């Protein structure tokens, strides 16, 4: 019998596998397709103070080994999230944990979402999105060291719930940002958000994506995600959630061995909604096969020599 339970962020996660923000809506969309309460948890679509309409089409397109998207953080806004989305999560997810992904155009907007949500029930904590490549200023806080420190410090004063910062891969040294988050009071990191990309329709000589550029996700970015997760985990002592191109137990284990405590499955859900369950079962099979008793033994167990290179 293998043990996949871990204590992280002050609670027990029954599985290390979560669903990534932007790929599982507000949970309910997948209720008939996935046994949501059997996985580790899910991260909601981003929530901003005011509703956002999002970008013009095309918003998504397939790319080699993945996809590019520029949804533009379309969401129902804080008030409707609390009134229409959170009650369903509260009533239907008893064992799976919910993280609310939070976005804002300013530190005040992020703080307003956190302050507005903090007294509600039905979720564990926040994933702070400082890394959206598809809206103006979306990576502003994720690529500016002092702005990030100020934002995380500000949110720390608003809440005692877990604050997990979702970092952008688009920085020269992710370790610096990992340490800033830790020093400013964050409880964990999510690495990584999508990579900025551009897909060209050569017949029309125009971008395929209505927003021009978009974020690239899927199996194509797996090794970059594993590298950046490894780098971030070595740079600070915070628990790290590994994200990027995971579609099997082996993929998840690459992240876990590189230092991730938990992982998120994203793009693979579009291909097959049962992918998260398959990832969980793949991890169980690996533990069985290797005679590993608990998943915790594998976190950061990568044997690697040499310096961490940016």
């Amino acid at each position: 019998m293998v043990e996949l339970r871990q204590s992280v962020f002050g609670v027990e996660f029954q599985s290390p596998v979560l669903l990534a923000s932007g790929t599982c809506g507000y949970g309910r969309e997948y209720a008939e397709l996935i046994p949501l309460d059997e996985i580790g948890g899910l991260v909601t679509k981003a929530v901003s103070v005011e509703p956002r309409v999002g970008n013009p089409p095309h918003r998504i397109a397939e790319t080699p080994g993945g996809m590019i998207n520029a949804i533009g953080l379309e969401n129902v806004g804080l008030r409707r999230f609390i009134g229409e989305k959170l009650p369903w999560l509260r009533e239907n997810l008893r064992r799976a944990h919910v993280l609310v992904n939070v976005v804002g155009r300013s530190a005040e907007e992020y703080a307003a979402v956190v302050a507005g949500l903090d007294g509600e029930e039905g979720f564990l904590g926040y994933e702070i999105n400082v890394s959206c490549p598809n809206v103006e200023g979306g990576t502003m806080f994720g690529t500016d060291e002092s702005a990030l420190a100020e934002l995380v410090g500000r949110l720390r004063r608003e809440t005692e719930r877990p604050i997990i910062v979702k970092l952008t891969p688009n920085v020269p040294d992710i370790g610096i940002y990992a340490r800033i988050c830790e020093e400013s009071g964050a409880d964990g990191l999510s690495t990584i958000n999508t990579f900025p990309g551009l897909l060209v329709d050569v017949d029309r000589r125009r971008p395929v994506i209505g927003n021009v550029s978009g974020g690239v996700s899927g199996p194509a970015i797996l090794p970059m995600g594993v590298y950046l997760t490894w780098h971030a985990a070595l740079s600070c002592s915070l628990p790290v959630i590994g994200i990027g191109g995971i579609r099997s137990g082996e993929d998840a284990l690459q992240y876990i061995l590189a230092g991730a405590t938990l992982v998120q499955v994203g793009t693979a859900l579009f291909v097959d909604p049962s992918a998260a369950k398959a990832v969980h079962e793949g991890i169980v099979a690996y533990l069985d096969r290797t005679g590993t008793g608990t998943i915790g033994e594998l976190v950061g167990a990568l044997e690697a020599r040499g310096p961490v290179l940016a």
Partner: protein
Amino acid sequence: MKVQHVAEATWWLELESPDIARRAEWGQFVMIGFGVDHLDPPFLPRPFSVGWRSEEGRVGLLVRVFGAGSRRLASLRVGDRALLLGPLGRPFHLAPGKPVICVAGGVGLAPFLFLAGEARRDGYDVRLLYGEGSADRVFDPALIERLTGEAPVVWTEDGSLGHPGRVTDGVDGAGDQAVLVGDPTVLACGPAAMLRALAGRSAREGFRLQVSVEEHMGCGVGTCQGCVVPGADSRWRKACTEGPVFDASELAWSS
């Protein structure tokens, strides 16, 4: 499953999927893909209108090759397995007792193969107008007749088969035959320009029009928010869960 080449670059697939066959409603679609181990196109599943169903649990899909993803789907062979998710989306709604006019452009024919056959059996007066660029693209009229119980009225832009011109001309009637009579419900599926032309006429002339739209789609169930089309109220509509069938008046039609 069964695969049949039915026109230039166009295949008719019949897949075993009893659950989808039983539950599908006219105008709904399925996502078809190959799972997470398959990285070649199509990596993301692709949406296809349910084109037909049988009591034995088969579902028919009409596939035209536009790129690498649809080429892979068209190359499916007997014994191959694919991942189907469905039936999905909002279906067509017929007005009880009123005549139905289906306007199909290209592979926009698919939902009407399904609807025309069953609605006729339910007693509806259904007229199917079907347009293509040229005769080599026209889905075998004999197969359409077998699936729907009646041969379609065919239009080709180059006049190589059926009536010459655009299928939208067919709404004015072929020859002297009036079409927009008896307070009909017009249903349309095809290229954006065709839908836009019909929506303009619907707004001017006041006939009921429902359109089935197409947009790049990721998940089919509303989570990726990728497949939006512009609504008349300036809000985006998700083609997968709010559509694919819309009343034409719900959408914005400026090009």
